[in-house]
């Protein structure tokens, strides 16, 4: 058992070798293999295997929890892979994420048992779901940037199969966007990590103490590259374009994982990045001078606070981007009519919250513990309520085969459990007290207020945006729940034609069943849609979803209650230990967070403006029917990305065509020149040899002639060295004889 001590912040944390992190990652891989082998031979065995192995992984993470969080250990598994430094390590931050991921995976797999039985290619789904789980756990348990990168790329590639699972036109289109954004992200990340490795002299998350990495501009460049790489995965506007296509296109359990867990890998990467910038040469305390504009501080002259400068600039940029992400995602979520698209934009908006917290943590540097606390807390919460919302919407789709808000309604009578669970998730995401979103949003609000105290008017504006976005969140979630579950069932009079239209148009309804002509299940849905259309037929066909699906959803709801009712416990037992192990935050602030009271009057009052704004939004939008507004295509950044991509491809094609044209134009010229040379050589040869050999193929013998001629010229030039002449002659004879041999 190897045993050494790492000085990590103020605490002394022991690194202990243990096989548990490795096993946690190995379990899903073994599971995937077994699932693949069993395949369609026995549906039941296969589903149970998938659940058992994801449960095993969850159990491993739970086992590690105690020793990591209470005893302050880091559990490490050394694997003899890659360049030998391939270590999986469960520190507090990584383990927390791994726990959330494996838990979400377990319950989503349980849910998938019910959900996926109407889809095709079930074995492929389970196999790749488990493989993706392994890769995701690998990201969270990575001990350095290299390991993180390896698994980050793997997760991106493997999740592609989940995104295009239904193989409809929409899904494939979403898949193309997804995979290319993943490739861009991977390349950017690689550049960042290579620069980090080269300049920081260290691949671990904390740069080498002796290197001056934090003081160089390379640090800033590397961090920017990494930020782009992680930001793409985190759905940060303007890098989000894949997300609103890919998340709705995947089957619901996969959407839940994509939105609940996988985009968090991006946020996780950004946390690691911030940690690396905190870095070891002790971060100098904040000075009054730092209150001035952050950008101007970017390359200050040699000064002790320069590393803080880099961190602050990154934090400042992150806060601004997060504000755009928040509000952009919120606005776009409000105007969606497809539920899953609405939820996808909601995910973007919520990632904005998280990024804002992380940005505040970076911006405040030494005193940014509250930002990280809010960010991490919100990451856990969002994993639960967004996964639950996606699963709930999946249940609605399972029963009604519709994802259009304009067609649903009044489902609460037929699907009471689903309705209840979705309401819980909705209240959670709205940030209503006693539900989990309240605690994290309160922390985030504190964080942005503190950042605004230091950062000036722009950050103050972000605070306002934060409150407005919280209002908007309430509005779109209310819209979702009211239009789906309450009121009366609307249906559509010409549903058949609508669904066909939806299939052919790119914008609406990219749900799993939109490719009606392809999969058998969807064809059933088709005929089903045709038959119904009135509220009466709703009575006949719609029923509550199977038990396994309800179990999967209920588990998430329990989490929402647990994290919403006992925020004090979460803060003191999970968040505060995590903060104390991370970077070098002010320990007083960490203690303060550990004993923070969430349910105070001022905190509850804090959400009232948001609530008011939300209700007002909702009423105004409902009155003027703004929910169905269609923004022009040119409004989205994706439009311009596509233009650039297509332009680039056109450029390639044009370049290649021009090359061919030039070749066609000048080839005869080159050929006649060759002819001329060849004639010349033949002429010289005949002069030398005194007799003409039959030319088998003049063009082929030409190079041999050139060779012989060159050799002769060289030999003549370097006369005196007789030995050399011998060589040349021997050589020419050898080559000529070979030529004859061939012909």
């Amino acid at each position, binding site marked *: 058992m190897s045993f050494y001590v790492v000085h990590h912040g103020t605490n002394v944390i022991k690194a202990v070798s243990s096989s548990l992190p490795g096993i946690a990652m190995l379990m899903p891989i073994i599971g995937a293999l077994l699932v693949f082998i069993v395949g369609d031979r026995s549906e039941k065995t296969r589903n149970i295997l998938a659940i058992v192995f994801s449960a095993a992984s969850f159990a491993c993470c739970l086992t590690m929890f105690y020793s990591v969080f209470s005893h302050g250990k880091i559990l490490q598994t050394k694997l003899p892979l890659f360049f030998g430094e391939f270590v999986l390590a469960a520190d507090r931050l990584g383990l927390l994420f791994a726990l959330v991921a494996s838990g979400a995976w377990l319950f989503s797999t349980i849910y998938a048992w019910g959900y996926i039985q109407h889809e095709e290619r079930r074995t492929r789904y389970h196999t790749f779901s488990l493989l993706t789980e392994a890769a995701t756990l690998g990201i969270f348990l990575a001990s350095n940037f290299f390991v993180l990168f390896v698994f980050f790329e793997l997760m991106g590639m493997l999740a592609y199969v989940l995104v295009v699972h239904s193989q409809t036109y929409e899904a*494939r289109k979403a898949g193309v966007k997804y995979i290319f954004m993943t490739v861009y992200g991977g390349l950017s990340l690689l550049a960042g990590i290579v*620069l980090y*490795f*080269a300049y920081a002299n260290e691949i671990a998350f904390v740069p080498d103490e002796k290197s001056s990495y934090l003081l160089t501009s390379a640090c800033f460049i590397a961090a920017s590259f990494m930020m782009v790489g992680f930001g793409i995965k985190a759905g940060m506007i303007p890098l989000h374009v894949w997300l609103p296509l890919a998340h709705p296109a995947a089957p619901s359990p996969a959407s839940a994982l994509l939105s609940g867990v996988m985009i968090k890998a991006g946020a996780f990467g950004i946390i690691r990045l911030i940690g690396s910038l905190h870095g070891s040469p002790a971060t100098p305390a904040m000075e009054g001078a730092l209150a001035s504009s952050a950008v101007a501080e970017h390359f200050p002259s040699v000064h002790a606070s320069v590393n803080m400068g880099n961190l602050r600039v990154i934090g400042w940029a992150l806060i601004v981007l997060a504000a755009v992400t928040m509000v952009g995602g919120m606005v776009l979520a409000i105007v969606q009519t497809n539920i899953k698209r609405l939820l996808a934009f909601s995910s973007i908006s919520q990632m904005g919250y998280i990024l804002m917290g992380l940005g505040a943590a970076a911006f405040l540097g030494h005193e940014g513990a509250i930002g990280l606390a809010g960010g991490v807390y919100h990451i856990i919460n969002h994993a639960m309520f967004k996964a639950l919302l996606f699963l709930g919407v999946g249940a609605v789709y399972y029963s009604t085969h519709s994802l259009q808000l304009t067609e649903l309604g009044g489902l609460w009578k037929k699907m009471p459990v689903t309705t209840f669970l979705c309401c819980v998730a909705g209240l959670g995401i709205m940030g209503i007290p006693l539900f989990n979103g309240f605690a994290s949003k309160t922390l985030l609000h504190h964080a942005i207020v503190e950042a605004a105290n230091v950062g000036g008017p722009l950050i103050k504006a972000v605070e306002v945006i934060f409150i407005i976005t919280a209002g908007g969140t309430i509005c779109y979630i209310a819209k979702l729940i009211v239009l789906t579950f309450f009121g009366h069932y609307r249906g559509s009079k010409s549903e058949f034609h609508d669904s066909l239209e939806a299939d052919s148009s790119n914008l609406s309804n990219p749900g799993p069943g939109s490719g009606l002509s392809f999969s058998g299940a969807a064809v059933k849905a088709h005929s089903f849609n045709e038959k119904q259309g009135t509220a009466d037929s709703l009575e006949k066909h719609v029923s509550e979803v199977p038990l396994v699906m309800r179990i999967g959803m209920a588990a998430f709801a329990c989490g929402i209650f647990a994290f919403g009712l006992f925020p004090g416990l979460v803060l003191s037992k999970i968040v505060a230990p995590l903060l104390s192990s991370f970077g070098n935050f002010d320990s007083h602030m960490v203690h303060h967070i550990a004993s923070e009271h969430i349910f105070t009057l001022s905190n509850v009052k804090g959400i009232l403006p948001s609530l008011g704004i939300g209700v007002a939004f909702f009423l105004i939008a409902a009155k003027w029917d703004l929910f169905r507004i269609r923004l022009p295509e040119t409004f989205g950044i994706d439009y311009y990305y596509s233009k650039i991509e297509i332009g680039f491809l056109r450029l390639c*094609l044009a370049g290649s065509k021009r090359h061919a044209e030039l070749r066609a134009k000048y080839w005869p010229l080159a050929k006649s020149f060759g002819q001329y040379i060849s004639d010349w050589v033949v002429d010289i040869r005949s002069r030398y040899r005194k007799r003409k050999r039959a030319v088998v193929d003049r063009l082929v013998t030409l*190079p041999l002639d050139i060779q012989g001629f*060159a050799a002769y010229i060289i030999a003549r030039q370097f006369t005196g060295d007789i030995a050399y002449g011998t060589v040349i002659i021997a050589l020419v004879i050898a080559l000529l004889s070979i030529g004859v041999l061939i012909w």
Partner: protein
Amino acid sequence: MGGEIKSILPIFIIFMPWLSLAGALLWRNRRPSLARFVYVGSSVLTFLLILLLYPRAMKGIISTQAILDIAPRISLGFRVDTLGFYFALLLSVLWVIASFYSLGYISTRETRYYCFLSLNLSFCLGVALSANMFTLFIFYELMSLFTYPLIIHDETDIARRAGLKYLVYSITAGAIILAALTMQFYYSGTLAFTGRPAVGGAGISAGVLKIIFSIYMLGFGVKACIMPLHGWVPDAHPAAPAPASALLSGVILKVGVFGILRLVYDVFGVELLRKLGVSLPMLYVASITIIVASIFAITQTDLKRRLAYSSVGQVSYIILGLFLLSKSGATGALLHIAHHAFMKGTLFLCSGIIMHELGTKDVREMDGAGAKIPLTMIAFSIAALGMMGTPVTCGFISKWLLALGSVEAHRGYFIPVLLISSLLNAVYFLPIIYSAFFKKVTVKKLISHEAPLSMLFSTLSCVVFVLVLGVFVTVPGLPYSLIKIVMKVIPL
């Protein structure tokens, strides 16, 4: 560490492939299956013989064997250092895979094909094991000429034209190398590879050295398909049968690269190249080749032509890494020789199966191929992802090292070249994978099934290398461990 011992083994290694000539003579007509056994067996035996050198190579001991002195200071001889051993090992492994694959693929003109295949192995090994530039040149020329029958194997008009083009390019290149060789000999008086740079201390003026270097590069650049000299590659690859194109791309292009390796490490030496300042222009040329070849690859619809252009680009990765003249860069370059050999080998072997089973080589007609030949397409996908540099395939390892090498050499601006190339690789490989697995079946041939066992098995074993080299990098005996020993000798 180090030292030299005399050993007769290299001679045996060189002549072992000739066994298949005997097999052809004896059993060609009477017992064809036995003859086939001998063809494949000879390459396996060669591989085993090369393995005998493994302990020495791991200790950095050099085996030498002089054969004959043609003139004072000019001789034929063998000298196996770790670099040569690495290349020879790679050659023989790939040859075993390709000849095993050929059992299922080649149905006409078998004898000619296998004899020339084996002779080519012999000559390529000669290049790898040669003790001086003269020996290298002789084997290099023989190899160039003996590849011709493999390219025109089908004897169609297209194949003949491609073969002609190949021959013109190669033999002209041979003449150019000869000129450079002569100049080197004239000015420095030695052609031997001794581990110390041959032209370093001879007091030759920088201008002459630059000229010698340029002429050498012009000669070896044809085989290593550096951009203006690449013309034969996209014609020869599609014309040759699949296993032959796998070898062309996997190994024979690398023989040119091997010549450049000897040039850089044994003739000029890193120090001298730094002083001469010739590495930067080479880096530019390599970068242009990487990007432009990838752009050309995008526009090709013939699968094998696309792969051939991809090879042009990938071989320049090696050139790029080599001329970065930094430790990680050189390691990445040397590793990429093997990595690209296995990845591109897999891709070409798969393209053979695709043509064999689906009857098409147009990339637009492969919708749903994954349902018909799943194992082949999985192998294809893994290798293609490797070309893009996805982790757990070996392409990632070389990309990582090359990127690191360019930072080490304080030339971080070559990282974008690697990244853009990866992106372009994605642009021309992903659509194939995507249409194979996620589109409805539209392939012409209705009844198709997996290829014959020998083809499938060798393709899969090739793709296993892609994964193993990408994950178990440091295992002794795999390229990385060998290259670490090579790197100890090279003053970087």
